[in-house]
């Protein structure tokens, strides 16, 4: 899994989002699926959506999250974020930009 891979949001505005005290239910009309996200999972989608015109690298996404959630840098975290990004991709919530 390369940290050089970049990602961008896919049709974020079509999502139906409900916030439940720091947790989120998200209905994805294209797939008809409902997803549950915690705060950090949701923040990834928001960060990608906030830069609609440019893709964001995994490293930058991790840095944003570490700043927002006051986390220390560690490689495991980067791997976890990367895996989550691939999962989002599979679900059609974001896409990879090579």
């Amino acid at each position, binding site marked *: 899994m390369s940290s050089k891979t970049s990602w961008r949001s896919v049709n974020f505005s079509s999502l139906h989002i409900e916030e439940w005290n720091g*947790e989120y239910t998200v209905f994805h009309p294209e797939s008809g699926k409902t*997803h549950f*996200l915690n705060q*950090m999972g949701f923040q990834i989608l928001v960060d990608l959506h906030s830069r609609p015109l440019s893709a964001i690298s995994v490293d930058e996404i991790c840095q944003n999250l570490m700043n927002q959630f006051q*986390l220390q840098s560690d490689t495991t975290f980067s791997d*976890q974020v990367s895996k*989550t990004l691939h*999962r989002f991709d599979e679900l059609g919530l974001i896409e990879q930009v090579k």
Partner: protein
Amino acid sequence: MSKDKFQKQSDSIKDSSTVSPEHDRRRLLKNTVAIPIIMTLSSSVAAQVARTSNLVTPIENLDVAAKNTNGDLLCVHPGPDGSVDVVNERPVDLGTLPSVTVDSADSADLQASACQREGGILISATAYASLSGKGVLPDSSIL
């Protein structure tokens, strides 16, 4: 609460196979803010009535076909919303309301012919057990 009620689809947690009971899901969702989490809702109740969950492959080998305790062949009929064009060796959708009949002929060959004539199919004992375990088909011991 069954762990099947919710399908955990993030592999970002180690030992995800152990994350099943309700309180563990809460812990994951609520307290673990240090990693991103996504789960996709899957309704197991709905899955029981989902058409694609009842796909089976018809078989012709009578030795491995599902039978009742008397050794009679169990002839499975797709429900009204199942597949109607039964083609051997290709998956058939049994739909949401499949039924089972048992013919009273003396030989397995005759029972198999009767099943085919009536639009039913024979399925393996393993496939039958799987579907009866899900409540889609009745337990073979009561037939």
